[in-house]
């Protein structure tokens, strides 16, 4: 597959021609005041709106694969249901490596055992253009989680060789190759360009480190094996609001709720799935109002065990925290930082 070089103008017309095509194009746009002055993914109207130098987005791009709310079924009330599958084609531009790795994990989780056609159809209709990080965000710790660079899952990987003047673009799928071929004025990248790209990626492996985990991510599972009764869960959870912000901003959280909605005609409606969060207090409720995770500390612990131990057993040992740092910024009482918790455990426990 090809590795091309696109200068600023070629890149701009490449993006504009995507926008002009029949596919919707979504990318990272200017910071939004209403979103806490954070960057956000949104539909692109022209190439100038695209900000590939962003640090981190408020909400991860997983919302395009697993929307906050989506229709699973449509039905007549108390009658027949029909499945609803969203088949819209989409190009997603500017996914950072850590978010790409999170999407790769979700792809595995939604296709293993029972194949989730709602997620997978949407996923297969998305062309992903990933991009290497240009500016580190305030709380990123991708270096520690080994997620600063990504090798698979995307169709094209972009690397900014300097201030958006030149990009290296590598296609690794047929879909990506076909799309990249539309950038007719792109030239083949030479060895020097590829060496520059490697240098940027090597630097990111070290520099995306605003927090440093004091062990290898692969050691978290055995650390947690011994940490269930540790006082840290209570210490931290004392100030937890059970707001679920750590769940909703997390690129690897995929738990969901299912609810039926009835339309105004009272005749038909939709069964919808929407994001849910294990930090919310009713998450583990059963009939008779019995709650299997009633205590804040048990919910707080559950999230960090899912990231470090439970989900990894389903996806070949990969840790389900990709170091984006979003939960750190979103947590009002400042207790969500996984690195702070895991490092606290490491003070007392040898993994």
């Amino acid at each position, binding site marked *: 597959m090809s590795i091309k070089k696109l200068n600023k103008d070629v890149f701009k017309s490449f993006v504009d021609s995507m926008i002009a095509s029949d596919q919707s194009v979504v990318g990272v746009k200017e910071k939004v005041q209403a979103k806490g002055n954070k960057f956000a993914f949104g539909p692109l109207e022209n190439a100038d709106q695209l900000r590939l130098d962003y640090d981190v987005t408020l909400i991860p791009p997983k919302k395009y694969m697993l929307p906050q709310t989506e229709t699973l079924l449509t039905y007549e009330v108390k009658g027949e249901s029909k499945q609803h599958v969203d088949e819209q084609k989409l190009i997603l531009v500017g996914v950072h490596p850590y978010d790409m790795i999170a999407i790769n994990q979700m792809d595995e989780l*939604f296709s293993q055992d*029972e*194949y989730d056609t*709602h997620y997978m*159809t949407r996923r297969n209709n998305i062309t992903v253009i990933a991009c290497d990080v240009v500016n580190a965000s305030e709380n990123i710790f991708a270096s520690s989680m080994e997620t600063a660079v990504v090798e698979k899952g995307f169709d094209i990987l972009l690397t900014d060789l300097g201030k958006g003047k030149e990009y290296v673009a590598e296609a690794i799928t047929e879909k990506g190759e076909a799309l990249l071929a539309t950038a007719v004025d792109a030239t083949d990248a030479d060895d020097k360009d590829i060496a520059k790209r490697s240098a940027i990626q090597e630097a990111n492996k070290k520099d995306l480190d605003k927090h440093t985990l004091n062990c290898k991510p692969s050691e978290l599972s055995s650390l947690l094996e011994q940490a269930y009764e540790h006082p840290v869960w209570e210490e931290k959870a004392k100030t937890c609001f059970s707001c679920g912000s750590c769940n909703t901003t997390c690129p690897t959280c995929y738990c969901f709720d299912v609810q039926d909605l009835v339309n105004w005609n009272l005749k038909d409606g939709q069964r919808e799935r929407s994001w849910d969060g*294990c930090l919310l207090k009713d998450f583990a409720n*059963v*009939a008779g109002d019995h709650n299997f995770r009633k205590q804040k500390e048990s919910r707080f612990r559950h999230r960090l065990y899912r990231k470090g131990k439970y989900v990894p057993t389903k996806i070949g040992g990969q840790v389900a925290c990709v170091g984006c740092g979003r939960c750190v910024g979103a947590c009002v009482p400042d207790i969500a930082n996984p690195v702070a918790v895991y490092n606290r455990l490491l003070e007392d426990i040898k993994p």
Partner: protein
Amino acid sequence: MCDCNSTEKSIYLPELAPITKVAMMNETEMYMHLDHDIGHKPGQFVEVSIAGIGEAPISISSSPTEAGFDMVIRKAGRVTDIMHQMQAGDKLGIRGPFGSGYPIDEMKGKDLVFVCGGIGLVPQRSMINYIMDNRADFGKIAILQGTKEFAQRIYHDELERWAGVDGVQVLETIDVAHDSWNGNVGVVTTLIDKIDGIDLTKAVNLICGPPIMYKFVLMVLQEKEVSHENIFVNLERRMKCGVGKCGHCQMNGQYVCQSGPVYRYSDLANIPEAI
């Protein structure tokens, strides 16, 4: 990555099936039969769907040796409230069966003790009637049923029928009884010493009841030196998807909808969230 196949059937799509029979069993429990074969194993559950209301996980109460399947519904939420208003001929959406069920092969040739509390008898009945229909494959059977009040008893005809089967003993107790009750009074653990001719340490012990009951039954079985390998518990969780995705039924690393709801007690040693 994956096969792109948008026409694949959704795992969330229920199949409509008519209810063939309903009957109130007491003030709160409704029996339902559906002439709809789903190919289940004893101990599995289904997701019952009413379009416009929602879905709820419900235990299957009948043995696969019988046609269709039975459920017993306690009014406990939106879906079960509406189910209580339904009649024969009304349709329910069904997904499943889900879960791993009882380990039948391992139970063959052994004595079995069923310890049930209240509607804990409902899922256990799927296994009990399987045994009744394959009686020669299993050893002696003890069925212990504890109910809070006389008026809440369920399946009493069936308890009587089982008591008449060779090698089967049925022991029943009521927590708080009126004078008219001639049987045992007290919680279900008071029946354990009354089991006749079964060595609990060699038997397979199957427990199902409200969360509070497990600890007490397990304590008694511990005193009797029953190995944790020979105890199975049947756990309750609110499964929303039934297919190991939504996260609601998760206890520690286990998705109850996939690896449960029936668990060998020794497998729960590292699952403190289980009970």
